[in-house]
């Protein structure tokens, strides 16, 4: 058994092997690996007795279940109108410069992916960004740089 097969088996033991166990298992793999590799999806399909196409079809429906490799830290900047009005473009530009990537890309060291997201539910405190599950409301370009530096230190 490969490492990912073992991990998937552990998750299936935990969440069950029924159809309605699929989302929790997919989410657990993304939480741990940051994305669903082909190998992981095949393992999930085998473990839950589903077709791989079905697993991929389900996963690819959801924005937060990535099927392409992502960095250790996924940065999502809210792009919906109120955050836009409060200056999210400046945050995007600053982070693109800092990380040397464009939106949708991952840094070459595999640490950061820079993405945009639809409304994150902090419209009164925009602009807002998520780094994995952590939320940062009322960010400024300066604050955004500081936040990323914090993660760099941790990495």
């Amino acid at each position, binding site marked *: 058994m490969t490492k990912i097969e073992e991990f998937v088996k552990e998750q299936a033991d935990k969440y069950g092997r*029924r*159809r*309605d*166990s*699929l*989302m*929790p298992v*997919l*989410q657990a793999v*993304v939480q741990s690996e940051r994305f669903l590799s082909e190998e992981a999806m095949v393992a999930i399909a085998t473990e839950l007795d589903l077709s791989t196409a079905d697993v991929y*079809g*389900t996963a690819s*429906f*959801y*924005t*937060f*279940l990535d099927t392409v490799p992502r960095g250790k830290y996924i940065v999502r900047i809210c792009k*919906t*109108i*109120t955050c*836009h*009005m409060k200056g999210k473009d400046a945050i995007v530009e600053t982070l693109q410069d800092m990380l040397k990537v464009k939106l949708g890309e991952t840094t070459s060291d595999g640490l950061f992916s820079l993405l945009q*997201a*639809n*409304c*994150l*539910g*902090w*419209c*009164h*405190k*925009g602009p807002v960004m*998520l780094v994995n*599950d*952590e*939320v940062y409301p009322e960010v400024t370009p300066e604050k955004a740089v500081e936040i990323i530096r914090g993660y760099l230190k941790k990495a």
Partner: protein
Amino acid sequence: MENKIKKVDLIFDKVDHLAILDKTFQRSQDEIILDVIDSGLRGRGGAGFPTGLKWKFAKNEEADQKYVICNADEGEPGTFKDREILTQVPEKVLAGMALCGYCIGASEGYIYLRAEYNFLLPQLHEKIDVFNKKMKERNMEFAIFIRSGSGAYVCGEETALMESMEGNRGEPRNKPPFPTSKGYLGKPTSINNVETLVFALMIAHHGPQQFKDMGTFDSRGSKVFSVSGDTPNAGIYELELGMTLEQFVNEFGDGDTKAVQVGGASGFCVARKHFKDTLIGFEGIPTGGSMMIFNSSRSMYNILHDYLEFFEEESCGQCTPCRVGCQQLLKGIEAVKKGIKPPSYLEELQKLSETMRIASKCGLGQSVPNPFNSIINNFREEIIY
């Protein structure tokens, strides 16, 4: 009507949720449901179905298993009240779910929490563990679990949410059958918005009269509003229903309000000249709470473009009117703006949007015409030039 809008404190009021449940569990299910019907409470997620009726339908179903679902997949742009409620008074939400479970005869409740709010999970799990223990101590057969979303706006639609919980793509189902007869795993299910469940608890606590005394005939009680955009007072406010948009703007605007988008991206854009005669509520313009305020420095083209981009991304793609319609509306206004298409093309697009309203399978595609037509009708020049 007095000119000042009235602030209310029912949702965030700290109460002893267990004492309310102990008191309420002494009463019969029918009595409680009648109170909720009598109060006039309607769903606070936006659709506004009478809550008591929903509970009654679910109760009347015969089944070996029923479910309560708390819809915390708050994704409507401009809405953030459910996050605030789950942060400040999570116990009241849990108690509201238990109350619903008692009334309809369900032993399991699920909170479907959007992935964007995953940071709430540790706190919620803690509260749920305590709450489930308290229910056990009382010999109440009711336990609450959490399921997470994964970043799909359409999963806020109740049947898409259930598909997602069942491990499928979040594609809405045909209705009927409605969830109260065939919901999660094909069992009768009452699915309610976070705020609705807390109001139901407070109605059980205070009785229906207090709630009924507030608001208007079709829009009883109060509502939590999420105020954002060009306002010095962005934030969460619980307000009595029945105010006009003019009253609202007087309180929250920055003095230069050009338009308010009522009900989020899927709601209606109201221009300044209509503030006076627009009532916020089910007899006027309903809202799940989202109130986005725009002042005269904002381009309505950019706002409409943003909304259409949002819908184009979030359409589940299952039905053609919505999938293709969203794409074409977006492309269409871009073409008019660039002069590739004549201004009269907007009328063609409006016809297309009416087709989407009639032919789309769920509320997502059906409501895209709301922002589209209200913005174009009010601000046609800004879209063209």
